[in-house]
């Protein structure tokens, strides 16, 4: 059977660094082909070359039997290739319909026919069963909705090959389910889908074939029927995954006490939330994103004003204190959006690592930052978390790191603060399974040493694997609390959707 | 070629013509601003150039880009051995005081202000006397008893014009109402025109332009609205005889010309020379000088005669027109 797409011997070099090394890849019509691999393996780079955003150093792209060269994305789009980027390429102030039709607007005499656009998009959304409010502003859409906008845009442009780069990393379980359904549906209707993801369960659920990349090379292409999660993991990481270390039982005293916390900004976002995190405990917060988790964390860490209620840290009131004071009192914070809150993309790895340490006693003398001493510490982090920093090492621009490696840098930085409390929001978003294992291990170790962790994750498996106690948030309130022993994915899902469960402990702390 | 003779200033200047085996004498005219739109400097430049031709000397005009450049340029002119350095205006006062004091063996001149040093010749004008005559004429001519002044900026210097004019106006027509508006800039004819239009709209039938380039805007407004107006520095009545009925005159060209001439003759002496009505250094068309343009009936022979009488009183000293800046 002829392939719809063949990429032959693709190589891409950045300076002395080889991101893709002789990679070959094929795609059939109506196929879902997953690409997996550890962070920095070169998945995104391969797709950027397919989409015309990067020119290959060498190699050939053959489309429907004919070799093609894409000088830019418009070339690729014209040849029926569409890409949904990890970082959405959307215009925040435009409506959903406008975002979808842009570049191919329905028009008459140069005038933009917005009504026709709305109709066309509506029809498209019905045809592919991707529901969306076409007149809403994109800035007001949830991440899941924005993802749908991106997919619809690609479809509107008439793509036969759709590339999805880590589409599920930011979605809630329900949204993931819907997306996987959409992907299957697209494949059935004759489209080919390339799916990049770190979640092997999803791969096993939806992919026909799987290509594994490691260190810029293909380590194998397998069909789903012939493989398993474990085999994929081995191919990716090159070793067996370790089980998480034992949890030590610690009966620590209260560390973080949140009392009746309310955040209001035009409307109530967080509504009378109360809970406690003890020493030696990981408390997980589950919930569909947009139910106030982000705002809750921002309120605790001082990034957002608290309307009512109190936050106590080790018995000390830190309500509405400046961020610096709260950090000083013993809080570190892995932010959920690593590009918005967690990095300065144009700055070097070293400068990004320094954030929060610049006024620390250990790294400054007489008002001067001790760069050399600090650099040694960063080197240790890079080694411990296997952060691939690129050719310029610590002086590499943070923005040039692959998404997962940047995440690891942030995790290392915040763990390095050695604070009694760590607030971890989506700590493993976008990292590969090897690194995820590593980060989970580090979190457990921190807990075992007697520190407390407040964990927010849209990944239920992560919550279940790490938490001693699980709180579920819904519409700004805590609607349920589950002990580790009694928690199941089903129970949490019900609570997350606004339902209630009976019979189990549902008391407020 | 340098001043080999280290002697005193007077000797230098006396024998300057003989230096360097008959080479031409070199005169630098250092202006404190760009000549640009300023007729004051334009005329000075012309006067100096005219003298240069007639008396066979080299005159180099150096325009300064800004305040800080003035001293720079004067110093450079000294360094480049110009035989006479003419400067101008209040803006150059500080700079000249410094440089002239440091170079007592050089001769300097300054036009339009006084620098009291033994090697500086100062030439000043009493513009307020001419402005007074203009005001007097306006007071006599106005039918609506309303006149306007469109001035460039509200700065002390311009008081010589605005205050002088108002004094004259009061002298001949105490009941006349006067509108004063400032453009806020020396080079904004568009705004000057609008201000003139507004004054005309309020009933002014004579508007005195003292807005530098803005005067051109006032002229246009006069043409459009049919009121009467006046020019500055040179006889401008020719531009639009129907509406520009007077001009206030100022002989900066004469001052520059005379200075160069005196220098060539060897008669240039330190000290102050003032040009007023008496010396015929300032004046008003028809009153102190004839004009190619026939007299407009709005002013008329009778008024000209009355103003001539006032002029005579000022010249004779019986009518005092104090310098507004010295009050």
């Amino acid at each position, binding site marked *: 059977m002829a392939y719809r797409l063949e990429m032959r011997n693709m190589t*891409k070099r950045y300076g002395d660094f080889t991101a893709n090394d002789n990679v070959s890849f094929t795609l059939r019509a109506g196929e879902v082909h997953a690409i997996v691999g550890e962070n920095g393996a070169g998945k995104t780079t391969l797709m950027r070359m397919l989409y*015309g*955003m*990067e*020119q290959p*150093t*060498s190699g050939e792209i053959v489309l429907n039997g004919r070799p093609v060269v894409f000088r830019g994305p418009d070339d690729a789009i014209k040849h029926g290739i569409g890409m949904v980027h990890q970082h959405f390429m959307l215009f925040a102030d435009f409506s959903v319909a406008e975002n979808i039709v842009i570049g191919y607007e329905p028009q008459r005499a140069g005038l933009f026919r917005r009504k026709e656009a709305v109709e066309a998009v509506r029809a498209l959304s019905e045809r592919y069963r991707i529901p969306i409010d076409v007149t809403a502003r994109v800035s007001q859409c949830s991440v899941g909705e924005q993802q749908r906008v991106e997919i619809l845009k690609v479809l509107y442009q008439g793509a036969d090959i759709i590339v999805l780069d880590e589409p599920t990393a930011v979605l809630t379980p329900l949204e993931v389910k819907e997306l996987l359904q959409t992907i299957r549906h697209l494949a059935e209707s004759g489209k080919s889908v390339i799916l990049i993801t770190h979640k092997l369960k999803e791969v096993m659920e939806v992919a026909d074939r799987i290509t594994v990349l490691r260190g810029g090379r293909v380590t194998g292409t397998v069909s789903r029927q012939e493989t398993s999660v474990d085999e994929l993991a081995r191919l990716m990481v090159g070793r067996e995954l370790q089980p998480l270390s034992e949890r030590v039982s610690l009966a620590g005293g209260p560390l973080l006490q949140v009392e009746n916390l309310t955040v209001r900004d035009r409307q109530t976002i967080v509504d009378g939330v109360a809970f406690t995190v003890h020493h030696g405990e990981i408390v997980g917060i589950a919930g569909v994103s947009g139910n106030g988790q982000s705002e809750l964390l921002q309120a605790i*860490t001082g*990034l957002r004003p608290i309307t009512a209620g109190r936050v106590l840290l080790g018995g000390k009131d830190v309500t509405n204190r*400046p*961020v*610096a004071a*709260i*950090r*000083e009192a013993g809080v570190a914070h892995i*932010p959920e959006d690593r590009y*918005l*809150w*967690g990095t*300065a*993309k144009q*700055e070097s790895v070293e400068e990004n690592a*320094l*954030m*929060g340490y*610049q*006024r620390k006693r250990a790294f*400054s003398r007489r*008002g*001067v*930052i001790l760069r050399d001493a600090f650099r040694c510490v960063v080197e240790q982090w890079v080694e411990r978390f296997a952060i691939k920093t690129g050719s310029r090492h610590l002086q590499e621009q943070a923005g040039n790191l692959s998404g997962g490696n940047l995440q690891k840098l942030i995790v290392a930085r915040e763990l390095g603060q050695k604070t009694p409390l760590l607030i971890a929001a989506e700590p493993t978003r976008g990292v590969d399974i090897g690194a995820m294992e590593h980060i989970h291990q580090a979190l457990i170790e921190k807990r075992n040493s007697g520190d407390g962790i407040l964990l927010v994750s849209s990944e239920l498996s992560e919550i279940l694997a790490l938490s001693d106690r699980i709180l579920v948030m819904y519409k700004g309130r805590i609607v349920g609390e589950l002990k580790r022993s009694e928690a199941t994915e089903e129970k949490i899902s019900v609570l997350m959707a606004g339902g209630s469960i009976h019979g189990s402990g549902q008391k407020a702390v | 070629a340098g001043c080999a003779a280290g002697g005193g200033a007077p000797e230098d200047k006396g024998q300057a013509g003989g230096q360097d085996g008959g080479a031409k004498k070199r005169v630098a005219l250092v202006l404190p601003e760009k000549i640009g739109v300023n007729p004051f400097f334009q005329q000075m430049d012309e006067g100096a150039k005219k003298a240069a031709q007639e008396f066979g000397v080299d005159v*180099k005009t*150096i*325009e*300064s*880009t*800004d*305040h*800080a*450049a003035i*001293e*720079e340029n004067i*110093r*450079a002119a000294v*360094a*480049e051995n110009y035989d006479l350095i003419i400067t101008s205006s*209040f*803006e150059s*006062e*500080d700079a000249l005081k410094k440089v002239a004091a*440091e170079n007592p063996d050089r001769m300097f001149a300054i036009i339009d*202000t*006084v620098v009291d040093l033994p090697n500086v010749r100062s030439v000043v004008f009493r513009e307020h006397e001419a402005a007074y005559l203009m005001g007097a004429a306006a007071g006599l001519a106005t039918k609506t008893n309303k006149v306007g002044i469109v001035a460039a900026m*509200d*700065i*002390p*210097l311009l008081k*010589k014009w605005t205050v002088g004019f108002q004094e004259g106006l009061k002298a001949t027509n105490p009941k006349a109402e006067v509108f004063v508006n400032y453009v806020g800039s020396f080079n904004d004819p568009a705004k000057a025109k609008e201000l003139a239009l507004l004054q005309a709209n309020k009933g002014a039938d004579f508007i005195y332009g003292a807005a530098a380039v803005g005067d051109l805007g006032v002229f246009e407004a006069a043409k459009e609205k049919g009121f009467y107006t006046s020019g500055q520095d040179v006889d401008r009545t020719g531009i639009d005889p129907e509406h520009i009925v007077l001009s206030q005159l100022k002989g900066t060209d004469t001052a520059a010309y005379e200075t160069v001439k005196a220098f060539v003759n060897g008669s240039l002496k330190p000290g102050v020379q003032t040009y007023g009505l008496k010396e015929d250094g300032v004046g008003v068309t028809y009153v102190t000088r004839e004009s190619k343009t026939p007299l407009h009936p709005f002013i008329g022979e009778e008024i000209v005669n009355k103003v001539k009488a006032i002029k005579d009183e000022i010249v004779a000293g019986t009518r005092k027109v104090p310098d507004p*800046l*010295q009050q």
Partner: protein
Amino acid sequence: MEAVKKLCKSLVQPLLAVAIGLLTGAVVISAVGESILDTYQQMWKGAFGSFYFFASTLARSTPIMLIGLGLSLAFRAGVFNLGAEGQMVLGAIGATLVGLYLPGPGLVKMLAALATGVAVGGLWSLLAGYMEAKFRVQLLITTLLLNYIAVLFAGYLVSEPFQDKSGSAALAQTAMLEKSVWLPKLFAGMSVHAGFLLALAAALALFWVVRFTPFGYEVKMLGHNPFFARYGGIDKDRVMLVAMFASGGLAGLAGTVEVLGAHYRFVDGALTVPGYAWTGLMATLLANSHPIGVVFTSILLAALQTGAMGVERNTEVPLELASVIQAVLILFISAKFSHDWWKNRKSKRRESHGVV
């Protein structure tokens, strides 16, 4: 070795730019039938031709440098302060009045005047910063508007209550400061004064702060990503206000040293007409907000001006043309073409070309 290579690489760009600027200027000069060589010779002479002219260039670079240094700090913090002119003028008038009317020995007066210049300029700048921090009124606009207000207010002060009534009294200016308050000239008979040393000291101090101190780090990170800065515990408003105060203070100092070292009195318009504020802005942008870079770019820009004066004095090339040449040179020096051209060639060899 690495450092030398880096230096060479960073020099290629400006040098090529200057070369192309000069070439374009040559076209303009020959278009009016003047001698290219002579004109450029006079330009060079006017700027660097002798120690005297070099000193004049340094004198002219002094206010540009101080303003540029101040702005570099604000820009690093991501604050676009367009109000240097007003800050300079108010600082200067404040310092002048203190120098004139404060009783006490000369040195005390001089120091007090310098301090006042910094404080007044800084506070005026802080006003815009405060309005942004507290009321979210856009600083970019307010600083621009506050210029007009400051310049008009200073104009009022010197044409009414504090006008010099001695002498011809025709200019809007204060009385002259007494000699003991003057900043000393560095060389007798040359215009460069102690203010230049102050500017150099400020550059070094700023370099040290930016490079080595936590505050410098915080300013930089705030400029790159304010969200990240806040997340990391940096007090955004505080850093912004400090940066604004410092940048306004240095602008105020620029005006002050110009008064104490060159004019010896505040003259209405003497600080605004030369356009020091815009030139200082350009110096910063050309130097990419690097304090030591600002030293060089401000001397370069000053040299272009003094060079143009030399052209005006000694050639028949009209003054306007000198300013055209100056503008053309600045245009091309700011261009990044050589760099891009270089980079493109390199990447083309490797057949890779990023689209985004």
